[in-house]
């Protein structure tokens, strides 16, 4: 399944002549360049707030008048009692989410792939990715109805006290990730299903002739067949490891699990907008971006090591 290596002959050296030859193509890209600059680069100017005191006192001032605090906002953020906890939450929820999500999606795709009844397969697949299109607000209330103290799950288990949503402990990470798996598994499985569909049927035929049973076929043909896809997706998700969505966290959280539900983006919101300290919020957001970029480069390196094409 290795992608064909690019033919070195098609790579032309940069030259003004070439630029001129492709001038119409280049001109067509100008609007997107403008878009990129205006919406992606100019807003970076706002990062200056991370080094200034931006509180209600100084809101009305211009950028030049606001007091400069150096790395003061970063120090405040890093010494916050919740910062270490927030980092842990973000990273572990991310890793757990990627791990469980990938494993779940592959498992589900395998099961679907083995179904021989086409109608039933299509029906199951359609139902399974429905939750993907439902907003977190609704998913969260369904999940809470099911998992809360005294909720449906505890009732089914005969009134056991599981404290799934009421332990201020890392268990909340697992709960969140499992809810996420339930919501996204069908959708994520689509890409693996298509990868499985792309495996040459001849290989299966050959395996059958050699006497391989269904499990052996899965283990020796299907799984190796989807490996490249899995690796690419895994690596791509590392880059966005710190961008754990805050809406999901906020909606699923309650009074007691807050400490373990807090993630970086939410932390920036609470300490920045919530406390009217926009400098601090910007500093946290900036930290998140910088670490995100570093992770992206690491992921890109790893991709190269696995023999995949570099993504960036």
């Amino acid at each position, binding site marked *: 399944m290795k992608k064909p290596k690019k033919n070195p002959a098609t790579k032309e050296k940069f030259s003004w002549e070439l630029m*001129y030859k492709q001038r119409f193509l280049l001109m067509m890209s*100008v609007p997107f360049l403008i878009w990129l600059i205006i919406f992606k680069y100019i807003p970076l100017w706002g990062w200056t707030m991370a080094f200034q005191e931006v509180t*209600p006192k100084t809101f009305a001032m211009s950028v030049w008048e606001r007091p400069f605090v150096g790395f003061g906002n970063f120090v405040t953020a890093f010494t916050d*009692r919740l910062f270490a906890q927030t980092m842990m939450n973000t990273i572990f929820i991310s890793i757990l989410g990627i791990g469980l999500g990938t494993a779940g999606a592959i498992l589900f795709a395998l099961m679907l792939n083995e179904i021989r009844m086409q109608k039933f397969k299509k029906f199951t697949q359609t139902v399974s990715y429905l939750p993907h299109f439902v907003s977190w607000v609704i998913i969260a209330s369904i999940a*809470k109805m099911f998992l809360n103290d005294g*909720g449906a799950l505890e009732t089914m288990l005969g009134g056991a006290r599981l404290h799934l949503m*009421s332990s201020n402990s890392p268990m909340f990470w697992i709960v969140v990730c499992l809810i996420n798996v339930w919501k996204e598994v069908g959708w994520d499985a689509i890409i693996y299903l298509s990868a499985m569909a792309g495996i040459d049927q001849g290989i299966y035929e050959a395996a059958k002739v050699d006497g391989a049973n269904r499990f052996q076929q899965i283990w020796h043909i299907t799984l190796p067949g989807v490996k490249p896809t899995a690796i690419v997706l895994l690596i791509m998700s590392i880059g966005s490891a710190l961008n754990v969505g805050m809406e999901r966290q906020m909606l699923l959280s309650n009074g*007691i699990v*807050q400490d373990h539900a807090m993630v970086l983006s939410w932390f920036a919101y609470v300490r920045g*907008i919530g406390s009217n300290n926009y400098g601090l919020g910007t500093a946290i957001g900036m930290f998140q971006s910088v670490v995100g970029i570093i992770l992206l480069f690491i992921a890109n390196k790893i991709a190269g090591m696995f023999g995949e094409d570099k993504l960036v």
Partner: protein
Amino acid sequence: MKNFRGKRCIAPVLAAALCAGVLSGCGSAATSGGGYAEDGVLELEFFNKDGEEDLWDNPVAQKLTEKTGIRLKVDYPVAADDMKVALMIAEQNFPDMIYAKGDVASLVEAGALLDLTDLIEKYGPNIKKMYGEEFDKLKYSAEDPSIYQLSSYPMGATPFKDAGNAQIQWAVLKENDYQVPRTLDDLEKMLKDYMAAHPKTEDGLDTIGITLSTSDWHWLITLGNPAGFIADGQPDNGQWLIDDEYNAMYKFRSDAEREYFRWLNRMYNEGVLDHEFATQTHEDYIAKISSGRVLALVDKDWDYADAERVLIADGKLDRTYAPLPVTISEDVKCPSLMSQGLTTGQGVAITTACKYPEEAIKFLDYLCSDEGQVLVNWGVEGINYSVDEKGKRYRSQEEIDASNSDKDYAKKTGVGFYAYPFPTYGNGVMDPTGNSYTTASREAVMAEYNKEQKAACKAWGVELLLDIFPQRDEFEIPKFSPVWAYAKPTEIEDITKKLDEIAWSGLIGCVIGKPEQFDANYDAMIKAFEGSGMYEAEKMMGDIVKAQVEMLEE
């Protein structure tokens, strides 16, 4: 080649042009959207942090417009912990008038509020009359004696109604021959006996001893505040206990409160306290109370009022609640009726963006006038109330019943809808005609009691339910206004916010934990307080209270 270079230049030029447009948009001076409408009425934008949808179309609102020539365009937050005020400051985009509740300090720091002192002097005789001797309490702080806002809380109220420290269903009291539980132990015994005798309600639901609402800011009302009332016997000063020397202490570290939470923890583990409370939303909480299965609450009447209306409408009058002066032990006095003086620090303010401050203050002054107060509190004469031949205002029985059982009554008729957060006289204050400004007076409250309440008064041999409470004159009025409503500097707010975060999940954790781990959990919480600047905040808070006392004594 030349041609190409020309094209390449366009991008930065265009970008710069757009950029300039964006920046100039940010720089424009802030003015509000208020102005004269086509019908000659002045429309002012009003943001009400505690508001709900109001199209200004109810009869009282119409009448206010007729009298003052002003119509309010009311804006309100869509969710409980809305960041609207913060965003207003960031955008420098303010309404004409604002009730920002706890966000006042940031507005003042942003210079968004108008000093009303001179305006009141010129156009506000009724405002001055209303606040009388307590007018100086409206001053923002010792350092900044400007008046930025009026008070959103009633002036000079005599309490006729109060929910006390805890509430219990009449049905439970009746089974105990109206014996009033005085201490938590009495209450516990009463609840346990009743639950043993009636494990299910008439509708087949499991009986719940006590439940709490802790999923959002309500944790302060049902989990935080009762601890101070019940364990320390202190009135509401927010998260602070203020001693006789005006020193402040973050209240959850008091030993008395630890005992209260220990009791809650025991109740949880013994099945009296609802085992679902930690994860239920406020809606779940109200729904549970509305079903009549919750025997006792530690809440305030305004919080569970919606649920009681449902109970009344369903004919389950004996499932509504009796106020109780319960405390942790006999020697702690229930502070429910204690007077803390005028509550200031939260109220309606006029912003610097308002182009019509004189009109706005005149509008507020009209609300403070005798005529305005009667309109706001009683409604429109001939429709909501009548005056008998002796000049006494009274309401018909249908009107009283509607106001007690219809939860949209205030919104539909406008009666009482504009009392809060606008300035208003408290219950029991008399106007020059000898009628009280509000519909509540001792006689009116007695007359409006339902049959459960009347039966209880008879059993107790008192006129008012509150007569069984420690009375107002048993307490001294503190020299400072209630600390919970103070507009606190952001330094204190920042620390308090973190302390409250710790307390919120910490206290719930202590209550639902195992009894043998209670002390360890509680100690860990206090340790976390100490690590988050509790002592600094206590010092700053104490200094503010002391400064206010000094300012008022001058």
